[in-house]
């Protein structure tokens, strides 16, 4: 079928859609909450889910190739009022035009209803279900397992299992509604191609996701319905699609036999994932991961991997974003394709090194066959489809601003600091306190979420949940991998290097004077700080403080994990646009950063401080122990000028970096003139997708703040 002919229209339907608000889910979930109020937690949540799927508007017109939508029109903001009705801080930063997006658009009966009832923080996302189970076995298989387990379950488990049953059956019913809608659309359509598309969707939805998929199309259709179903259940943010080239590997021969058709289907599938409107166009960081080896060392790239790369190359989605897992024996064609895309400025795929991530997970207690099945869940967090979500921001704890901690330490206890190591000692103490508090809060949060707002359908697709009759947060096999969140690390390293030079080295200033100078904007001091060694330049005078800072943090975290008899905590570094979020309210910091400026957006050099080019930045990062970042990959963004980035250069940098222990790498290939023109003429640059700290975004949709930051970065090259 010539899906290609429809793709442009399908893309226009998505990218050309006006920002709106869809009240379907908000109305239905409000109705359901009132109606099913007396049911036990899991059953009530599942019945609410069913009520949504039974009542929501189905849109089979915007993307006739696949069934699946979360709001009545593409990108119309889908509300989850049970978790609050608001535009989150990060979306405000990324899209200034969405700040007042919900104002006056949500009926009072809905806002008032949830005023006193909402659950607060929840719908934490950042996980990937095992889509392979849905594709290979179908939901009826899960329903049969639920029946098997039910007899031996206790009362609490039985209510969760009942919730799972309702959830799976609701999904099958939802697919049936799509089949009806598609058949009706087929009967009304004149264009033979559209008729064929609708009929194929109808036939597929009569079968999947209830039964095993029989071909590539059905496999993609099953995945899309399952994915959007989980979004509608309320999990919401950053639910990720796992490893589709493994889930669909059985259809690799079919994809190989007609690569063009396979690519066209994946393009339509990506539009389907991109239509997830949980936050309108603010929806971000649904990760798709492809490539990589398994625990036997076998490269798992196949024709589906190539179809995903080709599809991302031709359809300019920013969400989902694509990660490619590298290992030394990766398929050469896949690597060449990835390098060509990056050199052209596509800003995807983002690259991850199996040889750093998988062994670190094994060391943390993950079975090798699971560890080598890892994927990205969200911005840069790590997970394992259906087996681990908690190594991501889902259950990350701490959220510590490293430079903020140092700043605070210097201000409160300047007199007792006699050397830079004293600062690190105080930093270490703070980390320990933050981790202790964060851990307690985390435990409380898990219990509350799993008991009060369990996600039964999501859990049914995760391992261990049916058997244990429990929510995924507690029942997945690796629910004890803990990630401590940090940001501002590069700023903290620069602060330590500058303080060493100005205060404890030959500079001769007192620490109190240094702080005063920073606060008063002492130009001479700021100039000297600017000239001090900076992290990310392969300069050991600065880089040694990165190692010292990480060692201090590790010591503190090990004390806390040891005290609670938990596996060592991993570290996760900066996500999404948190560098702005944390930077905006923060005063001047001891690295010379001025009040309100963003923090470093990557584990590499702070913006504007890379003096020796990208190889020096990569060398600095190579000095870190990458295996500590198994909660989330460490988020390293390298910017190259458009004229200089050939596929060969990109590939050389990446392979050299990974072969010597690098963990993760993102390329932005930017052209300042092009970005300036795109800001002025957004209509001409629909396809321009860029990478910011933890997200990919279509440049023309970004806030002025983010656009200007990228332009400055490109101008500095």
């Amino acid at each position, binding site marked *: 079928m010539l899906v290609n002919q429809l793709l442009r229209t399908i893309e226009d339907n998505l990218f050309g859609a006006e920002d709106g608000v869809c009240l379907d889910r908000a109305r239905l979930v409000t109705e359901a909450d009132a109606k099913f109020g007396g049911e036990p937690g899991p059953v009530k949540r599942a019945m609410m889910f069913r009520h949504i799927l039974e009542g929501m508007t189905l849109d089979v017109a915007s993307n006739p190739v696949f069934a699946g939508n979360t709001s009545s029109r593409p990108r119309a903001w889908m509300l989850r009022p049970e978790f609050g009705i608001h535009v989150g801080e990060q979306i405000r930063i990324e899209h200034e035009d969405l700040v007042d997006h919900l104002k006056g658009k949500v009926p009072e009966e809905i806002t008032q209803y949830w005023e006193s009832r909402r659950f607060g923080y929840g719908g934490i996302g950042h996980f990937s279900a095992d889509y392979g189970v849905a594709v290979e076995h179908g939901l009826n298989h899960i329903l049969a397992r639920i029946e098997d387990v039910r007899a031996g379950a206790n009362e609490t488990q039985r209510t969760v299992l009942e919730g799972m049953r309702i959830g799976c059956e609701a999904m099958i019913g939802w697919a049936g509604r799509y089949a009806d809608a598609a058949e009706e659309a087929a009967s009304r359509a004149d264009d033979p191609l559209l008729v064929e598309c609708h009929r194929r969707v109808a036939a597929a939805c009569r079968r999947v996701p209830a039964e095993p998929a029989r071909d590539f199309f059905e496999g993609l259709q099953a995945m899309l319905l399952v994915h959007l179903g989980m979004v509608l259940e309320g999990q919401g943010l950053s639910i990720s699609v796992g490893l589709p080239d493994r889930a669909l590997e059985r259809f690799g021969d079919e994809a190989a036999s007609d690569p063009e058709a396979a690519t066209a289907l994946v393009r339509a599938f990506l539009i389907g994932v991109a239509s997830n409107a949980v936050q309108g166009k603010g929806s971000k960081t649904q990760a798709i991961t492809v490539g990589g080896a398994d625990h036997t060392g076998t490269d798992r790239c196949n024709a589906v991997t190539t179809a995903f790369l080709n599809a991302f190359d031709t359809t300019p989605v920013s969400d989902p974003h694509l990660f490619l897992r590298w290992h030394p024996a990766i398929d050469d064609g896949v690597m060449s394709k990835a390098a060509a895309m990056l050199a052209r400025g596509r800003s995807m795929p983002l690259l991850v090194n199996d040889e750093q991530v998988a062994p670190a997970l094994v060391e943390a207690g993950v079975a090798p066959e699971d560890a080598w099945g890892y994927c990205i869940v969200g911005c840069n967090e790590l997970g394992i489809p259906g087996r681990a979500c908690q190594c991501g921001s889902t259950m990350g704890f701490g959220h510590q601003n490293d430079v903020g901690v140092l700043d605070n330490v210097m201000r409160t206890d300047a007199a007792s600091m006699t050397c830079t190591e004293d600062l690190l000692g105080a930093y270490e103490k703070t980390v320990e306190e933050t981790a202790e508090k964060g851990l307690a809060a985390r435990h409380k949060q898990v219990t509350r979420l799993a008991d009060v707002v369990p996600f039964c359908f999501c859990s049914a697709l995760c391992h261990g949940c049916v058997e244990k009759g429990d929510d995924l947060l507690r029942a997945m096999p690796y629910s004890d991998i803990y990630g401590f969140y940090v940001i501002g690390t590069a700023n903290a390293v620069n602060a330590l290097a500058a303080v060493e030079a100005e205060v404890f080295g030959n500079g001769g200033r007192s620490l109190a004077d240094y702080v005063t100078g920073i606060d008063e904007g002492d130009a001479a001091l700021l100039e000297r700080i600017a000239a001090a060694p900076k992290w990310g330049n392969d300069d050991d005078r600065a880089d040694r403080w990165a190692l010292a800072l990480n060692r201090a943090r590790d010591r503190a975290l090990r004390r806390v994990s040891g005290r609670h008899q938990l596996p060592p905590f991993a570290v996760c570094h900066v996500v999404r646009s948190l560098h702005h979020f944390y930077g905006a309210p923060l005063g001047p910091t001891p690295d010379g950063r001025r009040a309100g400026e963003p923090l470093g957006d990557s584990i590499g050099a702070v913006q504007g401080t890379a003096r020796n080019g990208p190889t020096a930045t990569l*060398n600095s990062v190579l000095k870190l122990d990458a295996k500590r970042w198994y909660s989330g990959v460490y988020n390293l963004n390298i910017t190259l000028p458009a*004229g200089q980035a050939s596929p060969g250069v990109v590939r050389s940098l990446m392979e050299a970096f990974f072969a010597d222990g690098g963990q993760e790498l993102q390329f932005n290939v930017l052209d300042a003139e092009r970005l300036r023109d795109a800001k002025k003429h957004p209509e001409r640059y629909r396809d321009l997708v860029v990478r910011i700290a933890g997200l990919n975004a279509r440049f023309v949709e970004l806030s002025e703040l983010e656009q200007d930051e990228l332009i400055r970065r490109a101008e500095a090259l």
Partner: protein
Amino acid sequence: MNMPDASLLIADVQRFCLRDGPGIRTVVFLQGCGLHCWWCHNPQMRPASSGDAREVETGALADELMRDERYWRRSGGGVTLSGGEPLCQAGGCAALLAELKKREIHRCVETAGAVPWDAFEKLVSLVDLWFFDMKSADADRFREGAGGDLEQVRTNLRELTGRVPDRVTIRVPLINGFNADADGLEALGRQVAELAPRSAVQILPGHDLHVDSGRKAAVSREECEDARKILAAHAPNVEVCW
């Protein structure tokens, strides 16, 4: 310049350079040049000494450069000596290049060729690829614009291509008001064909970054393309390096 052979006076080291030879390269800019081309791109590196330059021991410099070895190996890159005029410090350059050769690093040298042959002799067995400037075929023009002896340059190029014919790339800085005219380029093409018949030619468009007011070195894309056509009649492989 009076430097011990184990030392170099360097103006700068730049990593991740992509236009100074194959692959990803680190370029060492040597301080000092005997010419004084009015369009020079690095005029601060012309004087034999400068407050900004640093003297380095060649072994230590080699160690410092090796920090990017992993990228050179993957990309087929290496180290390029530029300047200034590297051959003004031929002894030190030879020591550095020998050290890099021992470490099996690919080595390029960029030269204007206006030095006694003795300097080339020290380096000729140590260089994988030469970038040899051919600025003009007119001795008067060359003397006036660059302050050098064209015959010396011609002799050196002839000798060099005689010794290592496949290791020489000719570079033509295309300068408005100096060598961008059709007649001059025609003569220059003939000179390249005579002295370096097997060499590729790269045209480097001039720019006005460091040019005195009242003068203009920059050329247009059209002028570059015209120059390429003229030179292509004489050399096997001519490209414009923007």
